[in-house]
């Protein structure tokens, strides 16, 4: 039997407050709590909570015949804990049904996979721990932020022990091939790849309520018919979309919930497809071919590359200035600093700086607190400047403090002579791993 794999993404960043340059060094709180709370509450009420209830009901009715998977960023989970616990409860209940798989991703939904290997691994481990803590399952499938994928990333993911990774079936590397098969990484064939069917996923996520679309209205029966009519050897269809599609991107009035409600019945009855989680497919499907992806792909914009986050000089500068701190952050134990370090990595901050406003402007404008990419850049750089100062401050404080404990009261003179040594030593120690990393 052929497999239909539903995968829903949940992520909301900590949006930054308006942070002026005169706040640098003075005010260390970066977030717009009101805005973040408002947005997560709105999406929870309009989307997550009703959609969770619906899925729970469907699983209850259909039992093990209906399965779905989620990838929820750590930051989204944190915000739900704080602002929308009902939504989180729904996810916990879903976890208990045994029909729902929770995938691994980066904790802050970040670009570390492109920038810094160690940070990438740390982010994934942090996320896996959070998933296990909340949902009682250890993730076995990996889905990178925004489905970002490349040969290089696949090697790291395989190294971390994952057997399957989800990514986009982007035309630029897939060519004439269909996404509806299991593939594997050319860099490490042990890592299987499940590709998103962009056409059908976007039919639901973007075109569902578009009355100009020739296939409007999309019904569950119609989708089941399309699946049935697919060439018989195509073995798996992966529908991967933002969970907010239900009720937020497509509002309740569009009939999206009715569609979701009718979907499992229609698929099971008419299409010859069964519902499976990615983990199940890892064991049942064998790769038909390896794909070679030298340049990073993603599910964003027309290009399906990473230019939505790194397309212009502003984005590149901001990302560079952030990840240049990665190695210095390794020695950091300050909880607040670590929290900010994590939050500042969210890919959304860089997405807001995109100047591709003309072609994909509508998508970029979604939940975007800034009216121009320049404001996004200036605001982010102001925050990052303050963050960098704090890190410097912490490094300075950490060294003499350690020194004082060792030698309680040395003579004034010797202290003065020792000081430069003390500051230099750790610097050297910290810099050597940096060099190693760039050499790799």
């Amino acid at each position: 039997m052929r497999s239909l794999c539903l995968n829903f993404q949940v992520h909301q960043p900590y949006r930054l407050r308006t942070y002026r340059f005169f706040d640098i060094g003075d005010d260390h709180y970066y977030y717009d709590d009101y805005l973040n709370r408002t947005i997560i509450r709105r999406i929870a009420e309009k989307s997550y909570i009703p959609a969770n209830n619906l899925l729970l009901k469907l699983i209850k009715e259909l039992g093990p015949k209906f399965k779905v998977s989620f990838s929820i960023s750590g930051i989204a989970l944190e915000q739900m804990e704080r602002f929308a616990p009902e939504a989180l409860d729904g996810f916990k209940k879903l976890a208990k049904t045994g029909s729902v798989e929770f995938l691994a991703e980066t904790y802050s939904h970040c670009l570390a996979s492109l920038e810094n290997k160690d940070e990438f691994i740390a982010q994934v481990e942090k996320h896996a721990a959070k998933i296990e803590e909340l949902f009682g399952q250890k993730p076995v499938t990996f889905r990178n932020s925004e489905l970002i994928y490349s040969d290089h990333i696949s090697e790291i993911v395989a190294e971390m022990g994952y057997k399957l990774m989800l990514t986009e079936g982007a035309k630029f590397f897939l060519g004439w091939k269909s996404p509806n098969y299991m593939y594997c990484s050319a860099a490490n064939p042990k890592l299987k790849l499940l590709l998103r069917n962009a056409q059908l996923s976007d039919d639901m996520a973007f075109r569902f309520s578009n009355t100009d679309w020739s296939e409007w209205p999309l019904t569950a029966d119609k989708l089941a018919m399309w699946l049935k009519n697919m060439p018989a050897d195509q073995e798996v269809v992966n529908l991967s979309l933002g969970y907010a599609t239900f009720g937020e991107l497509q509002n309740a009035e569009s009939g999206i919930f009715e569609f979701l409600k009718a979907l499992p019945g229609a698929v099971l009855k008419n299409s010859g497809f069964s519902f499976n989680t990615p983990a199940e497919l890892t064991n049942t499907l064998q790769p038909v071919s390896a794909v070679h992806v030298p340049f990073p792909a993603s599910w964003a914009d027309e290009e399906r590359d990473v230019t939505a986050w790194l397309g212009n000089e502003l984005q590149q500068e901001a990302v560079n200035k952030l990840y240049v701190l990665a190695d210095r952050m390794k020695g950091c134990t300050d909880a607040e600093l670590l929290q900010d370090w994590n939050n500042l990595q969210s890919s959304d901050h860089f997405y807001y700086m995109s100047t591709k406003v003309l072609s994909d402007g509508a998508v970029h404008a979604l939940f975007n607190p800034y009216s121009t990419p320049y404001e996004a850049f200036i605001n982010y750089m102001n925050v990052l400047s303050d963050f960098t100062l704090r890190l410097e401050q912490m490094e300075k404080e950490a060294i003499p403090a350690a020194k004082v404990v060792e030698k309680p009261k040395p003579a004034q003179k010797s202290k003065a002579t020792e000081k430069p040594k003390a500051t230099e030593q750790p610097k050297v120690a910290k810099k050597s791993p940096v060099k190693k990393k760039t050499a790799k």
Partner: protein
Amino acid sequence: MFGWEFPPHITGGLGTACFGLTKGLAKHGVEALFVVPKAYGDESEEAVRLINASDVEMLTSEESHQKYWEQITFLEVGSNLVPYLTPEEFEKEIIAYKKGKKTKVKRTSAFGEKYQFSGKYGANLLEEVSRYAVVASAIAAENDFDVIHAHDWLTYPAGIAAKAVSGKPLVVHMHATEFDRSGEHVNQTVYDIERKGMEAADRVITVSDWTRAIVIERYGIDPEKVKTVHNAVEPVEKLDPTSYKRHLDEKIVTFLGRITFQKGPEYFIEAAYKVLQRDPNVRFVMAGTGDLMNKMVKRVAQLGISTRFHFTGFLKGDHVDHMFALSDVYVMPSISEPFGISPLEAMRTNVPVVISKQSGVAEVLKYALKIDFWDIDAMADAIYGLLHYPALSNFLKEHGTEEVNALKWENAALKVKDVYEEALNYQEIQYTI
């Protein structure tokens, strides 16, 4: 086409805009007959035939003119009303006017007389505006043309007169409104001329949607007949940046324009103060002069930033380019700016700009930082960002230059041509009804 000035004898952006437009129109096969109050003989006639209103002989006995004169009252012109004049220049004009008062009208033959226009923005401006209208009616009767195009209120009476004589459609071009020049304290005479001009016109061209909104809301003009055609800039050879040496290591942030209420100089000073508190290695320059100059000098002294904040007075020609070449950031904090050509000049010289959202130019620029003129924090933040995050400054420099070079008069002229055609059709419809 009726205008008040034509290069090289210009005091503001109006003449430059007229010149660019006529050149653009010529490329689309539109011939222009350009009437100026006073021609000097060295104007560029590559794209237009220039008519000097001072050369036109008027028969004072003609009844129509007599009638017209009876309705005209002269007013002394206040400096506020003159858009592109510094107080010093205005004073000079007044003196010159008082001296030469009686020699203006000279009899050249037994039957007619010629009026010698100054073509400036002097104290007798309103008298000149009216006389210009009378001359216009004579020009309209003598020449063959399809459309009348009048630039700014000074020439609206001329446009109306020409339309009355010829029956041809009238297009009036709003380069600025009285509200941009005077804030809420408008000169009623000027406002009335502007409104009458627009009411009499078959089509009104505004230089921005910002101005279009003012025209519709404040003058009650039918939105149907108001069309926006954004200004453009004439391409220039690239300045050699090495020709001006920088003697200071500090970054320079510049305001260049008339120091009047409309240009928002006080917001620039307050923003400068904020930036200087964090980063003392910046110099702010306010270039230009105007009625608020003394007040601004005082404010700078009050804030204690005089060693970092400089006034240059009025800058001319080369000095303007020099100033741009030395600048790291250009700020235009205008409270109400119909278009605003200076940011384009700055961008052409590779200077990133911060401009107020209350300006027409903000509608056409993507590679500029836009702020509300009153939002001092945002203005300061934008300046600081440009000074401290080179990626931003470089990004705007690189793309900004391209963007400005793409703003061609040729394209603007095509839109103007469309408006002409609309005006012709509009008139036809009116007559058939």
